[in-house]
C-alpha cells in the first residue's frame, strides 16, 4: 500500500492503495467517479477512458502510480458550471446512446480527437474513433455527433 495523490476534475485526492492497482478501480471505488467503466480490463474497448494531459487514456491498464500528480479528467469533469460540454450537447442532440455503457469512452475519445483535430475529415473520425467499441452499434449517430460538435466548437 502507498499514499498516492490524484488530481481529478480539478480536485486533489489522496488514496491508500497498491501502486499497481489500475487507475479505473481507484476512480470508481475510492473516488466514486463511475463515468469510466470496466469493459475488458485489457485496453481493447475504451469503456474506461479518461483524459490525462489531453490524451485519451485507458484507465483499466494504467497503474494508479503512473497517474499521480497529473491532471485527470473523467466524464464527470467534462461539463463546466452545470453547462454541458459541446460534445455532450451534441450527444444529447443526436440522441446517441442506446444502452449508453460505452458512451463515456466515445465522448472522451471524441474530445481528445477534436482537441487535436478541430475539423476532422470523415476518414479522421473513423480512424480516431475506431478503437472505441459500441455493441449497441450507435456508431452512425456517434459519427454525426462528432461532426456536429466539431462544427459548434469551431
Amino acid at each position, binding site marked *: 500500500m502507498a499514499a498516492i495523490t490524484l488530481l481529478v476534475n480539478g480536485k486533489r485526492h489522496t488514496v491508500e492503495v497498491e501502486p499497481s492497482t489500475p487507475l479505473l478501480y481507484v476512480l470508481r*471505488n475510492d473516488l466514486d467517479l463511475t463515468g469510466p*467503466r470496466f469493459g475488458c480490463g485489457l485496453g*481493447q474497448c475504451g469503456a474506461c477512458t479518461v483524459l490525462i494531459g489531453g490524451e485519451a487514456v485507458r484507465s483499466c491498464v494504467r497503474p494508479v502510480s503512473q497517474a499521480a500528480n497529473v491532471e485527470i479528467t473523467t466524464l464527470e469533469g467534462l461539463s463546466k458550471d452545470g453547462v454541458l460540454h459541446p460534445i455532450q450537447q451534441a450527444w444529447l442532440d443526436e440522441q446517441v446512446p442506446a444502452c449508453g455503457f460505452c458512451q463515456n469512452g466515445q465522448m472522451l475519445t471524441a474530445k481528445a480527437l477534436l482537441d487535436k483535430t478541430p475539423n476532422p475529415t470523415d476518414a479522421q473520425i473513423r480512424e480516431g474513433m475506431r478503437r472505441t*467499441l459500441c455493441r*449497441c452499434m450507435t*456508431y452512425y449517430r456517434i459519427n454525426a455527433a462528432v461532426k456536429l460538435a466539431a462544427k459548434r466548437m469551431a
Partner: protein
Amino acid sequence: MAPHSGDVENARLRAFGASARRVARRDFLRASGLMVASVAAISVEGVEAFLQRPAAAGPYPDPDFLQLDSWIVIRPDNTATFFVGKTDLGQGTGTAFRQIMADELDIDFAKTSCVMGSTDVTVDQGGSGGSDALQTDGYPMRRVAAEARRVLLEMASTHFGVPVTALAVSDGVVSTKTGDSADRGITYGELIGGKKFNVTLTGKNTDTTTGRAPLKAVQEMKNVGKSPRRDDIPAKVDGTQRWAVDMKVPGMLHARNVRPPMVGATLKAIDESSVKAVPGFVKVVSKGNYVAVVCEREEQAIRAARELKVEWTPPATKPFPPSEDLFTYMRATAPSSSSAPTVTGDVDTAILGAATTLQAQYDIPFQGHTAFGPAHALADPSNGQLTIYSNDMKSYGLRNGVARFLNIPREMVRVVWMQGPQAYGRTAAEDAGFEAAFLAHELQRPVRLQWSRQEETAWDTKGPAYAISMRGALDAQGQVVALDFDARAADHNHVGYNEHDTVLIAQLTGQRKAEPARGRASFPSDKYAIPARRLRGSVVPLPLAWETPVRMGNLRDPDGPQVTFASESFIDELAAAAKADPVAFRLGLLERGTGDDAGHKRVRSIACLKAAAQKFGWTPRPAPGPVPTADVVTGRGVAYSYRSETVAVEMVEVEVNRRTGRVWVKRIVCAHDCGLVINPEALTRTLEGGLLHSVSRALYEEARFDDTKMLSVDWVSSPTLTHADVPESIEIVQVNGDPNPNRPDLPHYGAGETVCKPMLAAVANAVFDATGVRMRRLPFTPARVLAALKA
C-alpha cells in the same frame, strides 16, 4: 431503526420516478450507503404519501396488478408516475410508455415519469423480451391509464356537481365545458388529494388487466407519433447515470469466478494458500465445479482469481468439434430431435418436373451476445432478506429463479433493476445474478460479482449455429414452383431464462436438471406464394451438453438472422437463375399470394418492398452486375422478412475490395412497418442499431473454439464492427402499409428485432451482385471473401 440502504433505494424508486434511471448523486450516495440515510430524510421528501406497499424492509410481496394504485401514482403537484414491469434496454420504451399513458390519462407528458422493472414496486410484466413492450404490454398500460382518467373524472363530477359528460380535461386539469368562471379548473392532483385510487381492476394476468374505461382512438392521442427526447439519455451523457455495475452498499465484498481452463474439467483440488497472502483476501468459495474468490477490494479479487492454484481433471471426451469443423460435424451427426415438417404441395415431384433446379448449403456459426460490459450483479442479504441489483432484462424471472435455486421464499427476494450494458436476450447477466446471490447467501454479506472480459466472451450464451440445406425449382417461365428448406440447428440444451436448474452455477454445482431441453430449428418468415414448399428442421447435439461455454440461449430474434440468411440468400439465387431483378422477383412471389392475409402482412410486405425500392432508387436488372475489373467493386442487395406482425425490407450497397477481401456496407435503406409508431426518432435509432448489429454478425462475429476450449475470448480474438465500418448513410422509411391506415384502433406492434433478420442475406446478395461470388458461410471475413473470389 435506520432503514436498510436498499430501502432508500426503494423509496427513491417511488419518489423520484423520472429519475429512477437518472439518479441524482445525492440520492445515490444515500442509496449506496456512502451517506447514511434516516427515516427523517425520507419523510421530508414526501415519500410516504406515495408509498403503495408495505415498507421495503421486506418481505417483498408481489405488487397487485389488479389494483390501479400499483400502476399509477398521481401526486398533489399534479405529476404522475407510471409503474411498469418492463425494462428499457436503451430503445426508449420507457419514454414511449409515458407517451401512450399520458395520452390515455390526459396529462402533460412533461409531468410524467416512469419506474421500471424492480420486482417489489412494479407489477410483473415479465421484464423485456420478444420485442413485445408495445405490442403486448402497451395495451394494459393504456387501459389502466384510461381507467385512472375515468375515475378522476368521476371525482370531478362530484366536485363540480355536474355529470361527467359536462366535463372537459386538458393536461390534467378538469373543468366544466360551460366554462362558468366560478368553476375554475381542478387538477388531478387536487382531486385525488394525496390519497390512493383504491380501484380494483379485472383481468387474468398483466396482459389482460383492464378497468372499465375504453381506449382512446389513435386520432385523439396527442403524444403518439411525436418524438420527445428519451428520458434516459441526459444522465448517460452527463455522467450522473448510476448503473447496476456502480451500485455499492456498506460492507460490500468483491468476487470473481474461476472457470475451468479446459471445458468439461472436474475440480480436483484447490490450494487456498496460494491466495492467502493477497491483501484483502476473504474466502475461496467452491461447490462442485464452481469456484469463486472473494476479497475486500475489486482489484484484489481480480488478482486472487488469477493467482488461485486449482487442479482440474480433464474430461474423458472432447466437448465439441473445433469450430472450423462444426458444419461437417452437424451434417454428419444424428439429430437428437426433429420438428414436424410444414408441407404445402408435393416438393419432390415439382422439383423432378422443373425446368431449372438449384440447391445450396448455408452455414451460420455460433454467435455470442458478447455484452460490452461483462456480466455483473450485487446481492445484499444484510437485512435478512435478499436484494439483487441487476441489469437483467427479466428481473422478475431472476427473482423467482434465485428463490428456487437457494430454496428460500420468493417474498424474501427482490431484484432492483438498473441500467446495464446491452442485453438482447438471455445474457450472462442472469448467470451472474444467481452467482452473486449464491455467494451473498453463503457469506451472509453483500457481494458484488463481475465476470472478466474473457469469461463474458467465452461463457455467455450463444445463438445456435445452423447448417441449412435448400433446394428450389423454377418452371420454364422462371417462376418458383418448389422450395425445400431443411435446417439443422446446434440447439440441443437451449437454456431458458433464469431457470434455477440450467443457469451456469446450477450446472457447475451439480444442481442441474436431468434432461436437456430439446431446442429447435426455426423456419423462415415470409409471405411468398410458392406452390410446393417443405420446411424441415432438426436439432443436433454437441458431445458435451452441460458445463460448456457453447451453450445456447436466445440472442436477438433468436433464430431469425440464421434462417433468413439462408432463405433470402436462396431466393436471390433463384432470382439470378431466372435472370430476374431481385426486387421484381420477390414482388412477384408476394403478389401471387391469394390466401388469407391475417394482419395484412402480405400487403404490408409489398408496401415495404416498394417503399424501400423507391428510397434506394432501385433500377431493375438481374444480379450480378457487370463482370468486375477494378480492385474495389460495388454491388447492391435486398432481403426481407417479418417477425410477429412487424415487416422489414432491407437494401444495402456494399463495396468489396477484391485485393484485401474487405466488405464495407456503404449504404443501408430499411423500410419498416410496425404499425402505429409511438416515437419515430427513438424507433429510427433503435432500428439503426439493430441493422448495424446484424452487419457486425455478417462481417465479423463467430464464437470460435478448438476441441478443448474457446478461442474467442476478447475483442482481439472476437472482433466486432467498429467506427471504421460506419455506413455513409442509413435511411429508415417508416411505412404504414395497413390497408386502412386511418383506423382508430391501428395497433402498435413490436420493433427492435425484426430488422436483425434480413441483413445477413442482404449483404451476401450485395457481395454477389458486386463480384458474382456467392457467400454461403458466415461471417464474411476478408480471408473468407478472398478465398471465395479465388475459388
